[in-house]
């Protein structure tokens, strides 16, 4: 007689995800499915609309990373209008986007990742949150978190006019430039943000690296996958979040491929399974080989860790130091320890702050040539940026009147669908064993496997209570014989 454990829906996850765990007679894991039961349809929704409207519409796809969709969409629309974009517009977009990264990474690290480490993975859920973090590390640190996030938001506001639901990027550039007086306000905030990135790295060293159990969990726990890494890089193979080429490197460090945005369909394909609406991207030239690890696998991940795995160096000096320290501690590069993504976010944040410093010192940044009116409609464009949670691709076509005829989106989390499925199964198999009942702590350890991907399966859906409660059902012999809820 087998039994089934359902974790539905998953907490701290945008959208509705569901984990089905099947146990055998002895209570060992037989199989595990990570399912997304929602059907979306956004790509159909935009067909028939003026193509220049899409960057304004796509921000509504997601309340978590609206700027990522705005940027990828703007670049795809640039392509539809012949890529007539002045260099200053790209600089301003990149500057905005680095500020956006900082605010997002701060929220993820302090509100989502830190509770597991500061409060402990098996801590009472009532205290395993940002309030629990502040209770342990002090109000002063809580104040720094709030202030730094607000500063990153204010910088975005001054550059792009809005922090959420941007309407700033237009075909041929951006709608407004950066005023000199605003730049003077931004400079001291950037200096403080840089200090905050160093503070965050120190905190990580003390709280996580200073705890042997956590280091052991990161390096030797079940949270690792021998799969490949994807990320956007510049001409020096350093991470770039706004533009560049997509590089894929295997887990031994060898480059598998490197492609420009318009070539994406030659390198990435999507596999469909009947038990989920979400597709499984894979490396097209290798073909779909199933949910398997190994050097011949066609599965890749697109995460903060994978972005550093594909990079040969960081783009800025202090980020380079942090990068070297991270890989030295982790035992070399690339790294398959998925939990190291939390550390990678902090390393990225250093590059974000240093990039902002670079733009603050750029005499051209307050210039006037931030937009040209495109003179042609060329009909097709692909925009790729690194969303905080993975490589984001927007591909549009339009007719001679600029009306959208097709749209294809491969979003950050979709790239990670197969790795999330595999990581969850690995964690389930490791923690749920015969004779061990799944406690709240064990279930949180399972959830930690996919939370490291910061998965996002939905958009800005908002209905009260605004939470994704955890509901666990254990089935035996076709009946629910045990059921318990957490936080609901």
């Amino acid at each position, binding site marked *: 007689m087998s039994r089934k454990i359902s974790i539905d829906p998953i907490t701290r996850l945008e959208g509705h995800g569901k984990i089905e765990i099947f146990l055998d007679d002895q209570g060992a894991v037989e199989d595990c499915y990570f399912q997304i039961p929602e059907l979306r349809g956004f790509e159909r929704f935009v067909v028939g609309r003026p193509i220049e409207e899409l960057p304004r*519409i796509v921000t*509504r796809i997601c309340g978590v990373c609206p700027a990522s969709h705005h940027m990828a969409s703007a670049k795809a629309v640039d392509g539809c209008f012949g890529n007539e974009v002045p260099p200053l517009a790209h600089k301003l977009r990149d500057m905005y986007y680095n500020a956006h990264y900082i605010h997002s990474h701060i929220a993820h690290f302090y509100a989502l990742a830190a509770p597991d480490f500061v409060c402990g993975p098996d801590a009472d859920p009532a205290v395993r949150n940002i309030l629990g973090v502040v209770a342990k590390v002090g109000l002063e640190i809580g*104040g720094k978190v709030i202030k730094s996030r607000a500063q990153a938001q204010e910088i975005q506001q001054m550059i792009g006019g809005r922090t*959420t*639901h941007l309407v700033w990027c237009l075909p041929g550039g951006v709608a407004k430039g950066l005023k000199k007086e605003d730049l003077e306000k931004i400079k001291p905030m950037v200096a403080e943000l840089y200090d905050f990135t160093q503070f965050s790295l120190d905190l990580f060293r003390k709280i996580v690296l200073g705890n042997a159990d956590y280091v052991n969990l990161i390096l030797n726990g079940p949270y690792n996958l021998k799969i490949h890494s994807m990320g956007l890089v510049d001409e020096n193979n350093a991470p770039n979040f706004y533009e560049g080429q997509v590089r894929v490197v295997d887990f031994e460090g060898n480059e598998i491929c490197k492609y420009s945005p318009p070539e994406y369909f030659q390198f990435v394909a999507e596999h469909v399974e009947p038990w989920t609406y979400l597709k499984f991207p894979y490396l097209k030239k290798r073909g779909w080989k199933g949910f398997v690890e190994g050097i011949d696998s066609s599965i890749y991940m697109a995460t903060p860790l994978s972005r550093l795995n594909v990079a040969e160096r960081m783009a800025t000096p202090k980020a380079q130091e942090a990068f070297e320290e991270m890989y030295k501690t982790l035992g070399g590069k690339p790294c398959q320890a998925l939990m190291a993504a939390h550390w990678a976010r902090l390393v990225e944040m250093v590059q974000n702050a240093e990039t902002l410093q670079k733009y603050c010192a750029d005499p051209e940044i307050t210039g006037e040539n931030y937009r040209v009116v495109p003179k042609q409609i060329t009909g097709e464009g692909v925009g790729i940026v690194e969303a905080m949670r993975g490589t984001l691709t927007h591909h549009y076509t339009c007719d001679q009147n600029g009306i959208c005829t097709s749209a294809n989106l491969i979003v950050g989390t979709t790239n990670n669908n197969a790795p999330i499925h595999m990581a969850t199964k690995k964690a389930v198999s490791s923690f749920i064993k015969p004779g061990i009942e799944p406690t709240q702590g064990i279930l949180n350890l399972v959830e930690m496997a996919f939370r490291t991907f910061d998965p996002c399966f939905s958009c800005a859906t908002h209905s009260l*209570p605004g939470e994704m409660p955890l509901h666990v059902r254990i089935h035996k012999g076709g009946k629910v014989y045990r059921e318990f809820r957490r936080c609901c």
Partner: protein
Amino acid sequence: MCGFTKEARSIVSSAAAVNVPVKTLLLGMGNAILCDDAVGIRLAKYLGERLAHAPGLSVLEECSVGGLNILEVVTGFDRLIILDSIKTSGGNPGDWYRFSGESLRETMHLDSVHDANLATALELGRKLGIKLPEDRDIHIFAVEVQDNITFSERMTEELERDFLQYAEEIYKEAAELVS
């Protein structure tokens, strides 16, 4: 359709005592292109127009942020009126409910999907000394919805058909608060 949680009107005594208009923020939560998720935004637009002359009232028709971001939105206000959607087990689309900030505390221990939730964010803000509305001055009106995952600029039939009815009912309660 009914507001089943009939709480007592809250009194913002400190401001009222000196006859200074209470700073109230009317906040529409949701996503305008996600079917019924737009109901909070539609309500904010409707109530904002009806209450345009209410003293001290600010209206933010479309707010799609949550978590720590919400702190920046509500900082400095004495009173908060949130218009939102809700999905309850067995609920009828178009029914609406009224909650207080105090009832949000029941979910404070939860972490949100990509951030802290509203109650956690408010609690954190208060601990840090940020000026925020008290729980008793946070009023939430939530309409039961059917579909908040399909991209559409229209709400489902029941919510569109009955909009004026439940919007007017909620308006009356909100008007009492800000009058």
